[in-house]
């Protein structure tokens, strides 16, 4: 188990704790329209499956919403 901060909340990820697993854990239906940053660095879609997230890292999974001028 790896504990990370996923979109601001403490979450446990089962091994292998990849970015892809983190994305699924957010409940994003599929990855379309979604992007990920780990500790403030973007992890390109192509590397989700092969990028491990480590204990205590900050994972942000974002998508487009209404907003802004």
């Amino acid at each position: 188990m790896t504990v990370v901060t996923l979109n601001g909340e403490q979450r446990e990820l089962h091994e292998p704790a990849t970015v892809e697993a983190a994305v699924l854990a957010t409940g994003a239906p599929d990855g379309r329209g979604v992007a990920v940053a780990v500790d403030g660095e973007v992890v390109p879609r192509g590397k989700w499956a092969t990028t491990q997230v480590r204990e205590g890292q900050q994972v942000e999974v974002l998508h487009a919403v209404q907003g802004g001028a």
Partner: protein
Amino acid sequence: MSDIFEIAGRALESRLILGTGGFRNLQVMAAAARESGAELATVAMRRVDPSARGSIVEVLEEAGLEVLPNTAGCFTAREAVTTAKLARDALGTDWVKLEVIGDDRTLLPDPAELLVAAEELVADGFTVLPYTSDDPILARRLEDAGCPAVMPLGSPIGSGMGINNPYNLRLIVEQAGVPVILDAGVGTASDAALAMEAGCDAVLLASAISRAADPVAMARAMRKAIEAGHEARAAGRIPRRLYAQASSPEEGLAELEGGAPAAPERARSGS
């Protein structure tokens, strides 16, 4: 102000760009978007919310608009740059409306952080449309940094105060070698017309439409106002003159007094 409106080589029919913040729901947004005639709509990047219904990207595309991600909510160059890169990865576009806010009460841009972010993103291959203050020097620095358009504010986001400093806007337009898009502050139709008459190439509208009592009707009004202001500038307005200019012929005036009393003479003598 040329009559072809191009940003970074991409021609646009509509001179109205839609901001999507503030609409009650996606349905109203889509209806207003259609009515506005806009081709581009800005979107923000936020944490995935599984409970959210409907994808804004799909709704906008159905309505025939393309998505322009912004960096709304970012207070530093670093946050803004990362947000732009996330948007590129999520939405497959290297266009970004760059916002770097300096204060959460006025949401005015931070000039130094904005310039840094613009330079970084341009270097990284982005097409950067910066939301900037009405400072003509900052606007030029952003153009010098490689931004293919500048987006000065009229007044703070959502304030509806219109254009607080028409003089600065005029300077920006005079000096700009890239399109000038008025961003933020518009409250009603005449504000948008004024911006176009001042020589802006386009206007970005969010709250003025989305928070109007009837967003769809306001979208239509704004579309007409922007066209009106743009066409009026092209049509060549009359000069402002200090005194009146009779629009009726002075010759051929009848003598109808049957003996003119003092009154009209006095009147005609003027001051």
